[in-house]
C-alpha cells in the first residue's frame, strides 16, 4: 500500500492526477466507498507536500486561480451531497468522453506530435484538418 501510494501520488506531485489510477487497484482490496475515501484522504498529504515544495522553491500561485476556487468549493459540496442519490452511469460516460477528447487534444499539443502533423500536411488534407482541429491553439 505504501508503494501504491508512493507511485500513484508521485503523479499527483507532478500535477497529473491523483486517485484516478489508484481507485481501480484499491477497489480490488476493499469496498468502493472506502477505496474512494482512502484515495481522497491520501491525496491530502501529497498535495500539501507538493505545494510546500513549490513554495520553498519560491514559486507562487496565480491570483486568478485562487479567485476561481470558491466556485470549485461550491461544486464539491453539491457533488458530495448528491453523491449517494445520483446514478453515476451518465456522469462516467460523459466524463469518459471529455477525457478522451481532452486526451487527443493534449497529445496533439506535444511538439513531437505536432511535427509529425506538419509532415503529414503535405500528404493528406484530411490529416491536416484533423491535426488543426485537435490543436490547442
Amino acid at each position, binding site marked *: 500500500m505504501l508503494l501504491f501510494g508512493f507511485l500513484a501520488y508521485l503523479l499527483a506531485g507532478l500535477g497529473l492526477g491523483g486517485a484516478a*489510477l489508484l481507485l481501480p487497484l484499491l477497489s480490488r482490496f476493499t469496498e468502493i466507498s472506502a477505496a474512494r475515501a482512502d484515495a481522497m484522504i491520501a491525496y491530502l498529504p501529497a498535495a500539501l507536500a507538493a505545494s510546500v515544495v513549490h513554495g520553498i522553491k519560491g514559486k507562487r500561485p496565480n491570483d486568478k486561480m485562487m479567485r476561481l476556487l470558491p466556485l*470549485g468549493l461550491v461544486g*464539491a459540496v453539491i457533488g458530495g451531497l448528491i453523491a449517494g442519490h445520483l446514478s453515476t452511469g451518465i456522469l462516467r460516460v460523459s466524463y469518459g468522453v471529455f*477525457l478522451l477528447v481532452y486526451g487527443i487534444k493534449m497529445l496533439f499539443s506535444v511538439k513531437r506530435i505536432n511535427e509529425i502533423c506538419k509532415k503529414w500536411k503535405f500528404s493528406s488534407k484530411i490529416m491536416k484538418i484533423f491535426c488543426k482541429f485537435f490543436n490547442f491553439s
Partner: protein
Amino acid sequence: MKDGFLMLAAGLLNGLLGTGGGIAAMPVLYAIYRAPKEAHRWVSLLIFPLTVLSLISQKFLPDRFAFPLSVGALFGGLTGAILLDKVSGDTLRLIFSVLLFYTGVRCFF
C-alpha cells in the same frame, strides 16, 4: 464564464466521484498559466480544499489502507514536486495525455 463553469464541474466531479476534479480544472489552469508546467504545479493546491470538502460532505469512511497510502502519498507528492522542474512541458503533456486516455477508456469499462 467558461472558466467558472469548468471549476464548478471540477468541484462536482470531485464531490461525486472522489477524483477527476484536477483533470477537469486543467483547461482552466492551462489558460491562466499559459505554461503547462505551472498549470500542473498548482493544480494539487487547488484541488486540496475541494477534496477536503468532498470528504466532509460525502461522509465516506476510510479503512485500514488509508494510513499506509497516505504515508506513501506524502513521499510520492514530495518526489513528484521535486521532479516537476526536471521534466519538460512536452513530456508532461505526453504523460498527461496517456493518463487521460487510460482514465477515459476505464470510464466505459
